[in-house]
């Protein structure tokens, strides 16, 4: 039949190709691994301009575009990308629990949105005056085994927590149209010490609560960074002051 009907033969070949490509392949990798021996994960578009910031406790490297035409003050809205995950270079990939990972990155993204949205309203389309906030949890490892919570479907249950003991946050703000780096931050403050991330909606255990607090604190530090870079100082402050005159007069 296949020999006589070329259409059927084409359909059979296409089906085989489809099955080979999608049917037999492994699920897509949802996390990346820090290359061995590297200082940074490679997530940021550039690490070249990062400098140790005196404004923060702990090891925090920051960069803010000094060019007045490209600095943070030129932007008014923000797109918050899904948070990415980088596991340690010696972590066992097979032990990274996807449900725990998703719970952690979704919680952290929500904390970032909460942290920045009144200063930079969150939008969903790229365009002029719009920044993109990219963030990654770097240095994640497999944590302890977890007894699945009651009432959670088996496929959504967290079986093993994420160890965030040595996690750092890498974050950058890029122009949503040109992808140029406008600001960046690598926060290595050890906020996740003693914390494990599992289900973060209603964390019952202390180590899970600690993880939640750590994510909140990292998000709050991102906001502090934006605030500090938005302050007006020096000669600019004098000019801003002089130029603001209400219309109603006195």
């Amino acid at each position: 039949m296949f020999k006589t009907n070329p259409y059927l033969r084409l359909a059979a070949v296409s089906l085989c190709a489809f099955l080979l490509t999608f049917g037999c392949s492994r699920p897509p990798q949802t996390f990346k691994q820090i290359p061995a021996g590297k200082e940074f994960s490679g997530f940021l578009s550039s690490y070249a301009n990062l400098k140790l910031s005196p404004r923060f406790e702990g090891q925090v490297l920051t960069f803010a575009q000094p060019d007045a035409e490209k600095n943070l003050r030129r932007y008014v809205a923000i797109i918050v990308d899904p948070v990415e995950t980088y596991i340690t270079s010696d972590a066992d990939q097979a032990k990274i629990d996807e449900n725990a990972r998703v719970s952690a990155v979704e919680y952290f993204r929500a904390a970032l949105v909460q942290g920045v949205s009144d200063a930079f309203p969150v939008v969903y389309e790229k365009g002029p005056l719009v920044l993109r906030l990219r963030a990654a949890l770097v240095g994640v490892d497999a944590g302890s085994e977890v007894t699945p919570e009651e009432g959670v479907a088996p496929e959504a249950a967290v079986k093993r927590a994420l160890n965030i003991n040595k996690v750092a946050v890498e974050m950058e703000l890029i122009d949503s149209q040109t992808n140029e780096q406008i600001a960046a931050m690598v926060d290595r403050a050890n906020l996740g010490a003693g914390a494990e991330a599992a289900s973060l909606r209603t964390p019952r255990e202390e180590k899970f609560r600690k993880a939640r607090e750590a994510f909140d604190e990292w998000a709050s530090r991102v906001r502090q960074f934006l605030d500090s870079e938005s302050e007006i100082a020096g000669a600019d402050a004098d000019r801003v002051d002089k130029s603001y005159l209400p219309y109603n007069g006195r």
Partner: protein
Amino acid sequence: MGRTGVTWLALLGAAAGVLVRGDTPLEPFPAYADSDICARLMVGPITDARTQCSRSTYKDGAEGVLVRLRDNLVLSVNKQKFLQERVGDFVSVTGEVKEKNGRIKVDSIKSIDLGSIPSGSVNKMLDVRQYKVTGEDAKIFEKIRHELAMLPYFSDYDYISFAFLGGEVILSGWTVRDINRGDAEHAAKSVKGVEHVTNNIDVLPLGSMDMTIRANTRLKLQRFLSRYFWGSGSDIKIIVKNGKTILLGQVTTKEDSDVAFIQANSVPGAFKVFNLLRVTGKGK
């Protein structure tokens, strides 16, 4: 049902109608017929400059509104024809006021003189006869102005107006960021001598069309009037709402003001430009 029954039904219907319409009686009240732009921009005493602003912006296509003199409540009217030929005038109005929505369904309206309005029925903040900011009030006014100028997230696309008298502040204007609304109120409240703040700052929508107009207007103005733009800000503020652009701030010459207007008008998508730039006449 006899004639008496019909009359009673009609009376009951009328009474129910009054109840449904709300608690605001249809008594005439004094108001100022303004344009929506000037009502938000020139909050404070109704001076000649404000009257001029009201008339010119209304003529250029701004929406007409009524400002209730008792409490500075800005009301959108159901039919613009009621305000034709009256914007810039004091008026006596009757109609159904929906305070929550800031709307009025006008029944009647007539122009009146300010002199015929008893000063007791006009908020002193709006009454040019009573509004005098001197002495300690002048110092407080200056402190509020300084605090508002220094808001960290105040951009080229925001403008906040205010009026101050006797411990009371009214904030108005436009901002693209929610934080400026709260921070401005907090900043005004932090000034010693301020007792009460009314916050009427409008948070602008961030639609992609308006964002594009904002960015392109700034780009054009900066190209032709670069001396008014510097590191952290600019002397020219660009307010964009639903395709309408308002140019605010100050420039040195009338020519610069005209250039700004022409350039803002040439931005694709900007279908109306209101040029309210002030010409200082002073060189930089």
